């Protein structure tokens, strides 16, 4: 459906504007097909499916490099909200913090219905398993809570912020970590567009200057919301990367079967065949790894941290390799702007830096599976 709704030439044409996002495609996906609320319980206005189903959507988004805020809004922000204690308490209707709970529930309903889009206001490179130890280690401190409860500070490289209605902001209060919702167009909020390597997922630098904010969670609740958002995001980014890799392989194989040089289809040259075969094998592995991560976050499996670090360590690399090979398999045409290969290359390389690099995730694995560093 995405390849039809959002074909490469349309994506490319929009990329040449300041606004790559196509609201019609996003509305169809988020609202009409109900993808925005896939993992949100029905009670909270969602489809009551799971992150497993959302992972399938993420894969399709990757496959078509569709410029939609699915990963950032329907996965990361939504997962963060679902993990905010208020979400659970709203469900149980015995909230200790009625206002926060109400805000979370209302926001989730809006997001699930596709009426609003929220993104988590953290650098897109943030890793879900920070190297530090202890609860709250790595909680961002670049935004502070003013005495009057407003927010002041900056966050750089926030993905999809330019089309968000709501920013979910981890901020540091005097009492410690806290978690807020801020209207993206509110007074005191400035979003500066960043020239992004990935043309289909733009970044913004955000400045808060005493911006009004609704507090959604505090302390451990805030830490938990942030960690869950990033963890589910990293798990499902692996599926998006799988989709990118698969699309690159498909495109390459199709080209190898139609392009002739020296009177032969180039797909008959064994060196290219073997590289395509190796790529296929790597993608088959990426699929197993990405699916496992999605199942783990869907089921809140105790193996989730390992599964997610593994998925990011593996799928990042495979997607980049697939996109790089795609350019090379296509030769000159793959180096042109008019061919979609570069959209995938830019998405793949950016995604490999998003939510932690492969090396960061390998380091996290070292901690998780007891393979400690030297010294």
């Amino acid at each position: 459906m995405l390849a039809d709704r959002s074909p490469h030439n349309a994506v490319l044409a929009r990329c040449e504007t300041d606004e790559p996002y196509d609201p019609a495609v996003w509305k169809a996906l988020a609202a009409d097909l109900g993808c925005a609320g896939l993992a949100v319980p029905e009670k909270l206005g969602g489809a009551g499916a799971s992150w497993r189903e959302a992972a399938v959507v993420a894969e399709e988004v990757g496959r078509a490099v569709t410029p939609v805020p699915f990963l950032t809004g329907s996965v990361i922000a939504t997962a963060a909200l679902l993990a905010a204690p208020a979400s659970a308490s709203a469900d149980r209707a015995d909230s200790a913090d009625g206002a926060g709970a109400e805000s979370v529930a209302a926001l989730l309903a809006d997001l699930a219905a596709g009426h609003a889009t929220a993104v988590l206001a953290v650098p897109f490179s943030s890793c879900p398993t920070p190297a530090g130890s202890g609860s709250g280690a790595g909680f961002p401190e670049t935004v502070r809570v003013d005495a009057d409860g407003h927010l002041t500070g900056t966050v750089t490289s926030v993905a999809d912020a330019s089309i968000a209605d709501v920013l979910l902001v981890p901020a540091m209060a005097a009492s410690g970590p806290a978690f807020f919702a801020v209207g993206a167009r509110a007074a005191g909020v400035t979003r500066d567009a960043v020239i992004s390597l990935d043309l289909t997922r733009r970044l913004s630098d955000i400045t808060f200057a005493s911006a009004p904010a609704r507090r959604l969670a505090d302390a451990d609740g805030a830490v938990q919301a942030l960690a869950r958002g990033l963890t589910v995001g990293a798990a499902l980014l692996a599926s998006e990367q799988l989709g990118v890799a698969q699309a690159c392989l498909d495109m390459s194989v199709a080209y190898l079967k139609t392009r002739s040089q020296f009177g032969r289809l180039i797909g008959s040259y064994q060196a290219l065949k073997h590289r395509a075969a190796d790529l296929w094998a790597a993608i088959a592995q990426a699929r197993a790894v990405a699916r496992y991560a999605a199942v783990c976050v869907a089921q809140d499996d105790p193996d989730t941290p390992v599964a997610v670090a593994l998925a990011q360590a593996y799928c990042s690399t495979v997607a980049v390799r697939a996109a790089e090979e795609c350019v090379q398999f296509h030769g000159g045409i793959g180096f042109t702007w008019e061919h979609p290969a570069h959209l995938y290359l830019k998405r793949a390389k950016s995604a490999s830096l998003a939510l932690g690099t492969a090396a960061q995730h390998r380091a996290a694995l070292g901690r998780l599976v007891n393979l400690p560093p030297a010294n």
Partner: protein
Amino acid sequence: MLNERIKALLDGHPPASTPRLEFLRARFDSGLAWVHFPAGLGGLDAPREQQRIVDEALAAAGAPDNDPHRIGIGLGMAAPTILAHGTDEQRRRFLRPLWTGEEVWCQLFSEPGAGSDLAGLATKAVRENPGDEASDWIVTGQKVWTSMAHEARWAILIARTDPNVPKHKGLTYFVCDMTGPGVEVRPLRQITGEAEFNEVFLTAARIPDAHRLGPVGAGWAVAQTTLMNERVAIGGGAQPREGGVIGVVARAWRERPELRTAAAHDTLLDLWTQAEAARLTATRLRQQLAAGGPGPEGSAAKLAFARLNQEISGFELDLLGEQGLRYDDWSTGSWASERPTTVDFAGRGAGYRYLRAKGNSIEGGTSEILRNIIAERVLGLPPEIRVDKDVPWKDLAQ
């Protein structure tokens, strides 16, 4: 019904008091050997998945098994081929002692000049009495990479019965008596100093026509059944996390902090990641195989297994440094050939792992052939240009 049969077997032949062979024969005769085989041939025509129920119940009751590793070639390759292509008489003669392990099987396929290009093989089989359609066959040639040949009673064998037609069309599949005259088995010493495999020299070895499997000239088609099952078998069984060679290295890393370096840490975790990815993939593959049959996905699993075993074992030597310069055993005392029948990666030294892993990308289909299979059968890329398709075998460059 299955549980009743199991109970009846155990009641009739209490494992504690029944001799091993007697129990195995009784198990075969009660259809509990391989339940998906036909009734009367050790099976019940039941779904393959039910085998697990039988195996677990009998193991729990303390029943002996048929030492599946020792008779793996018979179970994994000969049996499905005999079932698919054998006559009723052949099935009845061969399958029971094959399964009980009374008769060990080996495979006489590869030749020095026919490795990847198996269909180019040169071992020839000619009728003793050319005009007679029931005549014995006289077989001459050299086979190689034959494991278990020195213990085997029977071999599955492909030989050329017509050199005047293109190579795939002139082959015939036989069952060869390894104890007959004209069959000589010599150990083939390998890179590790041991001889897991053999060379087999056939010098006018005699095979009755009743031991031909499938029609004359249909050997290639029959062999496909064998080969598909071989690749799946090599793809490996279910592994726990860190179950393979990576586990050996991970344990060394944990137990010997003095080996750790900053540079090696990321490499170790990269290899761990790849090993775990391969393991999860193999798990998915097995779930899919439960539904369908063996496919090219098995080729990918074997490809990954070979590459990883080689990378990890090479890394292990780097990690060990000085210790990596030392080897555990060349059997140098007498230089008599060791004849291992299994490959034990975990039970030997790092140097052995490194050397033995080199065979993983050669044996049972080279990695190059596996990549061709994936490229052509999965991705549908054009086949290699074949210069040997329509040429009589005798006219090919050998």
